[in-house]
């Protein structure tokens, strides 16, 4: 039972990350390889606020999101004007740099030793330290994030993101400032990724930089590609597929030593097949050209 709850929490975290990534890739057409860095900065911000500065969960939550809104500015500064492939490379660069900072700035982040003893959330006096209560808290947060994105994709603003995705040149000749819309996408995506980071940090009570590597960024983009870009269903299904795949392997009794690699091999194969033969993924409405 506990294991099932653990799976649920991982689903919640990855759904949030997928929704954030989808805004960038699926709605704005930006292939970002730095989502894990945003996720990591969010997790570290929350962890430090909770352990060093001993603020309440609510403030740590807001703080992490707030810090992420600012921490993504360098990406905006150097990457946003770059075209397709080079935007991806620039975000890759940022991902590597952020990881290097998290890993090496030991005085601040404790480097590879990570941060321990992150307290479980306490909101309105209620303590969410038990597994079931955490699942519920995570669930509420996930639903709120989901509602946020459903709303975001109904307002006129979404049209402009998608215009940037579909034809930047046409947007420019219509007099629209594409930099503004790209910036907005990055900022929102970064802020939402922080929320996943907060959940991660308070769930595991321990974080270290190895959870926020380039590999993780690659995983996050794969999730939305396999699930499908440009739809909410796509993001959710992609996240569920990623979290639940190893559980399926469990049923066939694969020895644990082999399981991790096998899982990634299956996952990588699915990614390649999707790219080659089913570019819309499971439920996508948009594909990278």
């Amino acid at each position, binding site marked *: 039972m506990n294991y099932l709850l653990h799976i649920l929490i991982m689903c919640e975290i990855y759904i949030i990350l997928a929704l954030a990534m989808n805004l960038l890739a699926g709605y704005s057409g930006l292939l970002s390889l730095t989502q894990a860095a945003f996720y990591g900065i969010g997790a570290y911000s929350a962890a430090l606020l909770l352990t060093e500065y001993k603020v309440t969960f609510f403030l740590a939550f807001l703080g992490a999101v707030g810090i992420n809104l600012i921490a993504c500015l360098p990406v905006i500064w150097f990457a946003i004007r770059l075209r397709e492939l080079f935007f991806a490379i620039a975000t890759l660069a940022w991902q590597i740099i952020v990881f290097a900072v998290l890993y090496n700035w030991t005085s601040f982040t404790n480097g590879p030793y990570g941060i321990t003893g992150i307290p479980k959330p306490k909101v309105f006096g209620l303590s969410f330290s038990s597994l079931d209560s955490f699942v519920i808290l995570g669930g509420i947060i996930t639903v709120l994030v989901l509602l946020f994105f459903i709303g975001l994709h109904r307002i*006129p603003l979404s*049209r402009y993101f998608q215009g940037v995705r579909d*034809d930047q040149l*046409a947007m420019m000749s*219509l*007099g629209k400032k594409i930099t503004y819309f790209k910036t907005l996408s990055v900022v929102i995506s970064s802020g939402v990724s922080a929320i996943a980071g907060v959940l991660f940090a308070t769930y595991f009570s321990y974080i270290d930089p190895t959870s926020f590597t380039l590999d993780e960024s690659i995983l996050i983009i794969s999730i939305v590609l396999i699930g499908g870009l440009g739809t909410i269903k796509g993001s959710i299904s992609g996240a569920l597929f990623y979290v639940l795949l190893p559980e399926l392997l469990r049923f066939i009794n694969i020895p644990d030593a082999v399981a991790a690699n096998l899982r990634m091999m299956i996952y990588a194969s699915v990614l390649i097949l999707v790219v080659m033969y089913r570019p819309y993924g499971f439920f996508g409405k948009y594909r990278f050209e």
Partner: protein
Amino acid sequence: MILKVEHISKSFNGLNVLKDVSFLVHAGTITSLFGENGSGKTTLFHIIAGFLKPTSGNVYFQNENLHHKSADEIDELGIGRTWQSPRIFKNLSVQDNLLLATKDHPGERLFNYILKPGIIWREEKRRKIRANEVCGEVGLAGKLQKTAGALSYGQQKLLSIGMLLMNDAELLLLDEPFAGVNTQMIDAISKVLLQLKESGKTVLLVEHNRSKATEISDKVLHLVKGSIEEQEFITP
């Protein structure tokens, strides 16, 4: 007179592409610009639309010199252009395409959603009504919700003209509106252009299909090796 092209010359690296081109375009008319490949007609087109600067000469739109203006400033003044391959937003509906083309929608700014959501909602409604009208004007009635990418090539061309109208463009610069479509669609597009002229819009188009374009034009300009031979027709 709405557009005055005055002594426009353009050279690229010593090659004289346009030599002292001058002509007038009057409001509420359709003017066609013909020329072989290499005659400079595309260059001239780009200059009027603001995507290229002339080596010398001026272009006046409603008596305003377009000289230092960028493409989006020119767009602001009421000049709209289409592209050889229709530049539409393939994954968005026809309605979204038309709405995207409008200017200064309060829904473009994030803060407006917090400060003045009511205005956004109102503008959205107003523009949707206009989009519906324009949809009909360009012969795409009933196709508002269709995904633009699913339209036929000709219908996409009509959509791109529609997008110019959403912007209240007064002068429409059309890049080969009849290219790549069948005769039925050519007739449909001609009809739309004539209706636009009827409602007071001005059209300047570049075309290879001389016969059809001449049929609907008030004036025809032939560009040969960078210079103009002009012809004038009076339409009945």
